[in-house]
């Protein structure tokens, strides 16, 4: 039986198309732009495994009407067959993202050779300019970009936007996707904004600082740090809290006039105080705690107001509303109905902060 099994495996091996590594271009990063004539401009960064090649990383670009058409046109220009199995980052031009990118993203999921762990990003300016720029310190922009995003996501400074997560948020009724917003400044890449999507269209961006409060509302926090401006005894001062872990609880208070209670519970450790305050005294610590609570509450409210103004819902309030309204016996809302209702939403934010430690000094 085993011999036969192996025989079938060996015989079938000859049937498939061969993928010899030396003849392939392994795409690592892909960028999509809107070209002037309304077509897509695609840029692919790929590795070539070739001992004789002078450069290990090559960038190639081309225009077409569809993303698969891009691959075709790029293949015509390349001596290697470009394959997508190693793609780690996809960059979308913000102009393009404002017009909607669902078909492009969906195409990535349709292709069985592309994994679900690909990071999606939006670029300020053309992806072409970011990917073709020569960064003196990094030979492979694809890997560099990937590591920069992953490092920030794993350090919980950035909201993750993997291919799977984008699709999931897109399809959710009452939840919108987000993406890291990257920008090239001279020879460096900066990730200091987050792009907010309404369905498939980029509509606004927030800073990574606001992103912190968004992340608190979107998911659980386990680590991460925040510099925060608090007012203590009528003085304004800065403090840094770290090792933040947070839990949120969002409830619908009123179905008719949509009203949500947003409860955030956070534990943290104070890392730095800009001024000398004796934290070993309980009443002082309590004061600081209250001040941080107030500051976090204010910024969260500010963020929610901003989200409502732009008519986006990356937190997923709509989803929670939808469940509550189904429980009360109503039909499941559609995406548009849900967005319409969320326009009138009011939020009651309640923040509770517990300072666990104050570093190694009191």
């Amino acid at each position, binding site marked *: 039986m085993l011999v*036969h*099994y192996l025989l*079938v495996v060996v015989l079938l091996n000859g*049937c498939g198309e061969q993928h010899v590594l030396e003849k392939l271009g392994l795409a690592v990063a892909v960028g999509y732009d809107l070209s002037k004539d309304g077509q897509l401009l695609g840029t692919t960064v790929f590795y070539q495994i070739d001992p004789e090649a002078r450069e290990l990383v090559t960038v190639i670009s081309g225009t077409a009407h569809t993303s698969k058409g891009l691959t075709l046109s790029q293949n015509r220009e390349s001596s290697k067959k470009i394959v997508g199995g190693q793609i780690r980052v996809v960059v979308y031009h913000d102009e393009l993202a404002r017009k909607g990118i669902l078909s492009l993203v969906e195409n990535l999921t349709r292709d069985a050779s592309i994994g679900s762990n690909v990071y999606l990003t939006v670029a300020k300016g053309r992806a072409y300019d970011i990917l073709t720029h020569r960064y003196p310190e990094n030979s492979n922009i694809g890997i560099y970009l990937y590591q920069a995003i992953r490092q920030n996501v794993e350090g919980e400074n950035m909201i993750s936007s993997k291919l799977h997560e984008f699709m999931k948020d897109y*399809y959710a009724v009452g939840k919108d996707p987000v993406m890291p917003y990257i920008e090239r400044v001279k020879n460096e890449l900066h990730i200091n904004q987050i792009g907010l999507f309404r369905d498939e269209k980029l509509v606004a961006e927030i800073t990574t600082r606001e992103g912190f409060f968004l992340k608190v509302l979107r998911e659980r926090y386990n680590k991460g740090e925040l510099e925060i401006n608090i007012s203590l005894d009528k003085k304004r001062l800065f403090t840094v809290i770290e090792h933040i872990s947070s839990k949120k609880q969002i409830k619908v208070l009123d179905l008719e006039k949509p009203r949500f209670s947003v409860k955030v519970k956070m534990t943290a450790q104070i890392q730095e105080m800009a001024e000398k305050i004796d934290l070993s005294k309980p009443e002082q610590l309590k004061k600081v705690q209250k001040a941080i609570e107030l500051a976090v509450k204010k910024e969260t409210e500010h963020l929610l107001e901003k989200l409502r103004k732009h008519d986006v819902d990356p937190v997923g309030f709509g989803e929670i509303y939808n469940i509550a309204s189904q429980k009360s016996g109503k039909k499941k809302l559609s995406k548009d109905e849900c967005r319409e209702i969320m326009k009138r939403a009011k939020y009651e934010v309640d923040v509770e902060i517990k300072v666990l430690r104050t570093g190694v000094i009191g």
Partner: protein
Amino acid sequence: MSLSTFRRNSHMAISVSLALFMVHGNQVGIGIAGVQRFIYDRVQQDAWIAVIIAGIMTHIAAWFMLKILAKFKNMDLYDIHQSVFGKWPARVLNFIFIVYIMGSALTILRGYIEIIQSWMFPEVPSWILNAALLCLTVYGVTGGIRVLAGISFFSVGLTIWQLLLMAYPLQYADFHLLQPVFHHDIGQLLDGAKKMSFSTIGFEIILFIYPFVKEKEILPRYVHGGLFMTTCLYVVVMLVTLLYFEGEQLQHLIWATFMMMKIVEFPFLERFEFVSISLWMLIMLDNLLMDLWIAMRGVHHISGVKERMALFGIVGVMFFASNFLETRQSINLITDIFGGVGFYIIFVYPIVLYVVIRLFRKGAVRT
């Protein structure tokens, strides 16, 4: 005594504990790769409840089957038909069973080849894969029932660990997606459970392996054990799927289970689903082997053709028939047909047969 009782010597018998693996292995096949969206289509977030209901249905059907079998010691379904209905009606019924079994084997075979073509080798023509797998099947089936039992054991043992990989998609779980719970009435849930039938059938093999099992009196506990294992497996897979995918997203996915595997990533292996798809051949193989073995014995029973000749005939027919199933639509259609027919044959028919036997064959226990 009929022809199929021939060669029933002790060296042909299989240990009763293997029945657990045969039942479980034969239930789990190509269905688990993508059944989720069909159930979701009916009962949305309550799909996992429908799966539990489907599991309970298998226990009920198996209970009736075992009751029937216990009445006729040492007979398989073909013999039972003959003894209950007489020669000609039995032939018709047996023929229907053979066609059904061959149809479901064909669905499994074509379904698996479709997966290979979509994920790995789109340019390989189906007939090559068909021929290769059918050759392997012929070789396995001629090995006899003990070989098939052994393959079931190994197929389950070598693939069940993949369940642990569900931990990866669980990292992305969103528990909102299960709410509101119990939001469908029992009729809808049953309808969802019915959609599951193609994936839970396969335990009907006990109707055919019964004469070969050594300690028949303790067979029921192994059969129900195997069914319970299957139900647990499906519930876990269904729950993880519901938590991992947004509903509408799920409805676009043909093979949700493999789509979930896409998120699995090891430092030494980035795309685990390719390994998983290759391993699926083992999962699918024991289905195919058992089905063709049953069909072979059936053809032998109704026509008297030698078993090996019957097998070649069946394989020839399957090879020929699978050439007509090229597109996704036709595969969907055949899966739908055999899922629907399977529901009546596996879940309804045993009850009917049991009632018939109780009513008309009082005390007709033959050994």
